[in-house]
């Protein structure tokens, strides 16, 4: 499949969009080794915070 030109260009947004789907959506099965729901929430919250701070840093750099 070719890369769609409609994909957001900014890497950070793309990552969040991706994580939004791969961690929040899709079929959840109890594999032998699989993430517990709590793990996913933690990762997701962690990533939100991380991406938010990256965004803030970028804006600060732009403003400097």
């Amino acid at each position: 499949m070719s890369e769609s030109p409609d994909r957001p260009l900014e890497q950070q947004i793309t990552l969040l969009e991706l994580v939004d789907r791969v961690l929040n959506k899709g079929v959840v099965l109890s594999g032998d080794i699989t993430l517990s729901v709590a793990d996913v929430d933690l990762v997701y919250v962690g990533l939100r915070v991380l991406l938010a701070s990256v965004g803030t840093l970028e804006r600060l750099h732009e403003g400097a």
Partner: protein
Amino acid sequence: MSDREAPSTGTAYYTYGVVPLDFPAGAFKGAQGVGGRPVELVASTEVAALTSVVSLDEFGEEPLHANLNDREWLERTARAHEDVLERALAAAPVIPFRLCTVYRGRDQVLDLLSNRGAAFARLLDRLRGTVEVGVKVYLDRARFLEAAGATPAPASPSGREYMLRRQRERTVDEERERFKAECARSSHERLASVALAAEANAPQPPEVSGRTDEMVLNGAYLVEAADGALAEAVAELERAYGPRGVSYELTGPWTPYNFVPRDLAET
């Protein structure tokens, strides 16, 4: 990465999702999945799973906890997971599994396929020929204010001017909230009317979306792969709402993450 992993640690089956039995066998020739591993089909009598044999050093329960908190590992793995699913989607319908669904062995994957095979097969039939498209709708505050005819504040307002301006700002805020709600509702309705299924997710706050614009709608739509009706509806909505500061962002095509049940037992 290197070949120095201890041979005693063993392997497991990373499972990306499920595809129909008629999935073309050569679709993953030479392709790499998570952990740089090749992608293998594990087939039962009804459906097949997309898998990679991965090292427990990386995907075992303990290392997984640590790896998920490593942003680079998470990004690399999420992208590899998505790449495999997108490549599969180009050839056949796919049921995407959540990231890091890992089974101890091939037998456990086969157990899953035989226990849930009928439900998987029914779902694949429904998904055949479709893709998921994401539509995010944003409102640019400044452009909205401009369109609403709000005038910029004077540099040094008098007390009376200040009071009048505050009052006016409050009215504009209320108007903006009403407009956002109405724009979200009518956009989602219009887009859902040309989709096979639709889902409105919670809008992301600006610090997460990375944009200063407010997200008004965070929608996902299941459409026929070759159907241009959604893009046309977006263009039409943009013509209607664009002058008031609204913009539409399309993402995808994605595998139908938003249109598979979280728990297949629910279907």
